[in-house]
């Protein structure tokens, strides 16, 4: 059965169905539906909702709950996510799983609340200090808001690493029919590393401080191995009409939906355009882009920013591929006509 | 007979036990210990005065003193 559901609500319900019983958060538009839904529904399943005093407190409550072995989540947007960056770095350094939701708002500064993708670099290329990565998932539909949230918990636990849902406000705020049951049964793994008190076992420690000579280098290389494994095993992307395409559009989130419409119209006009939509932004589908770019020599990256994923596409491309960019920052939303016009310019 | 045992190689020579011993029977050694401090020691001629009051152990920041009674 499918239910007409708002993206943010689908995400919140996904968290509950993923076994998340702890939510800590601070209000910020455009993600308030998430805490409001969880404040209402978590207590019904024996969960805990804390309206935290700040995003800094939220992420550190996550750190505590995660260290105790629980599935925990917070959500925020723009400035709130910036405040949490220290926590992400500690989670990654301490190897603790957590799910963080960023329903992006426009920046820099207080910015605005219209749909945007300005936080790609922050999410994918750090944000916090040190040599680490978040797992970053980019839903483009309400159904994916539900499914990828469950996936985020699964990946976070599997790799003991923070996982972020990075969505624009359009994906968070619009409604679509959704299947609100997991595709596969949710399995929460055992967490023998969790801190539960040293009952019948030696005391355990979770930390990110390594002061001994060489210790931190070993730790960083261990983390790197983990990120390499993610790149081997966890890359997700969607393709459309790439088999015969002369031009490949690469977009995630809302622009990928608009690009699909543009491609449909372009094909009616005989223009062979196709789409590659990264679903995981870290690990990034570099290999797939590299392979497609061996044959498709023109790429148009479409983003709702001034060109952030663009850099990753440029790095992934095969030599001799021409990468073009069309972006609408600051709350501007590309229309199918705009994308079609950009594609036609490249023919 | 009450007495104390000072873990000489754990002592950092802070003088707290010397200062607080009500019988004033602890002193500081003239020999370095393994970690480079002059550790506390019982004055050999006064050690029989120890009452096992535990004050020295209570004030020892390094938990280097055990008390027997």
């Amino acid at each position: 059965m499918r239910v007409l559901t708002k993206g943010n609500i689908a995400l919140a319900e996904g968290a509950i169905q993923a076994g998340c019983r702890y939510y800590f958060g601070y209000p910020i538009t455009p993600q308030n539906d998430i805490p409001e839904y969880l404040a209402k529904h978590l207590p019904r399943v024996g969960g805990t909702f804390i309206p935290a005093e700040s995003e800094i407190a939220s992420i550190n409550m996550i750190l505590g709950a995660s260290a105790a072995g629980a599935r925990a989540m917070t959500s925020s947007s723009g400035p709130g996510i910036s405040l949490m960056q220290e926590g992400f770095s500690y989670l990654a350094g301490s190897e603790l799983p957590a799910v963080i939701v960023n329903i992006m708002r426009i920046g820099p500064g207080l910015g605005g609340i219209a749909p945007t993708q300005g936080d790609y670099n922050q999410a994918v290329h750090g944000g916090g200090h040190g040599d680490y990565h978040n797992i970053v998932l980019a839903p483009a539909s309400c159904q994916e808001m539900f499914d990828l949230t469950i996936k985020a918990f699964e990946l976070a636990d599997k790799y003991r690493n923070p996982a972020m849902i990075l969505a624009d406000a359009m994906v968070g705020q619009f409604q679509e029919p959704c299947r609100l049951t997991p595709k596969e049964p949710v399995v929460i793994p055992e967490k023998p590393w969790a801190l539960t008190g040293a009952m019948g076992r030696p005391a355990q420690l979770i930390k990110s401080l390594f002061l001994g000579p060489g210790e931190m280098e070993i730790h960083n290389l261990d983390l790197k191995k983990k990120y390499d494994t993610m790149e081997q095993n966890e890359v997700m992307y969607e393709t459309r009409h790439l088999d015969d395409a002369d031009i490949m559009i690469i977009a995630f989130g809302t622009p990928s939906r608009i690009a699909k419409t543009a491609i449909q119209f372009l094909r009616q006009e005989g223009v062979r355009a196709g789409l590659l939509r990264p679903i995981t932004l870290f690990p990034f589908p570099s290999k797939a882009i590299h392979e497609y770019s061996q044959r498709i020599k023109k790429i148009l990256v479409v983003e709702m920013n001034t060109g952030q994923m663009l850099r990753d596409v440029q790095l992934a491309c095969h030599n001799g591929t021409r990468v073009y960019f069309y972006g609408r920052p600051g709350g501007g939303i590309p229309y199918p006509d705009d994308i079609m016009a950009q594609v036609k310019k490249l023919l | 007979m009450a007495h104390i045992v000072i873990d000489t190689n754990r002592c950092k020579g802070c003088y707290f036990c010397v200062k607080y011993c009500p019988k004033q029977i602890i002193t500081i050694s003239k020999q370095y210990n393994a970690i480079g401090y002059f550790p506390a020691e019982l004055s050999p001629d006064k050690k029989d005065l120890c009452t096992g009051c535990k004050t020295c152990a209570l004030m020892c920041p390094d938990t280097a003193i055990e008390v027997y009674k």
Partner: protein
Amino acid sequence: MQAVFTRPKTLKDTPTHFCPGCTHGIAHRIVAEVIDELGIREKTIGIPGVGCCVFLYKYLDIDVLEAPHGRAPACATGMKRVLPDRIIFAYQGDGDMAAIGTSEVIHAANRGENITVIYINNSVYGMTGGQMAPTTLLGQQTTTTPYGRNFRSEGYPIRMAEMLATLEGVAYSARVALHKPKYVMQAKKAVEKAFMMQINEMGFSVVEMLSTCNTNWRVSPTEAIDKLENEMIPYFPLGVFKERTGKDFL
């Protein structure tokens, strides 16, 4: 002949990194003794902040989570909500709690989180080399107040135990000192009371411990004892500022 004073079981047999005469070592031992005496070692989890307190995990034989600077009360909140039957305590210095972490401690206290905070106040940032802390006394010279703390530019030392005691969620707030035998015994009683508040689910408990930092005060360990007595205690009076007797939640 029997041992009447030995190392508590919870205190590992590891030499501390504390400077000679730093009363922080006494604070660690007191906490370990109380954990032993209450028989809660196997259900206690410690959450140190950042500073000299961070190496708690090296010294206490309990589960430990290392928290970001100032955030231990938030981490303890998250953990306690997952494990309500465990004893969770944060362990913070004055830079950690009274400067960068004021927001987290005040709101954890105000929510009445059933956790305990051990707060070491030595009026200076110890581990980073003796910079001014919010608790630095007026006139006190530090590496960042080389001419002495001046209220016109750096404000006044902050009294956390009194401030936290004003919050409804707080079950127990006390200030103790670690520089004299009688005070050390009182300090241990305060720690025990704080843990008992948590065991009895009374709400937030905090014990502020005045501690010496002779290295950064630039005096000998025994001179630091006098300094604590003569300079800190007049500004930071010892005492119990709040003690809940029943589950008098509003």
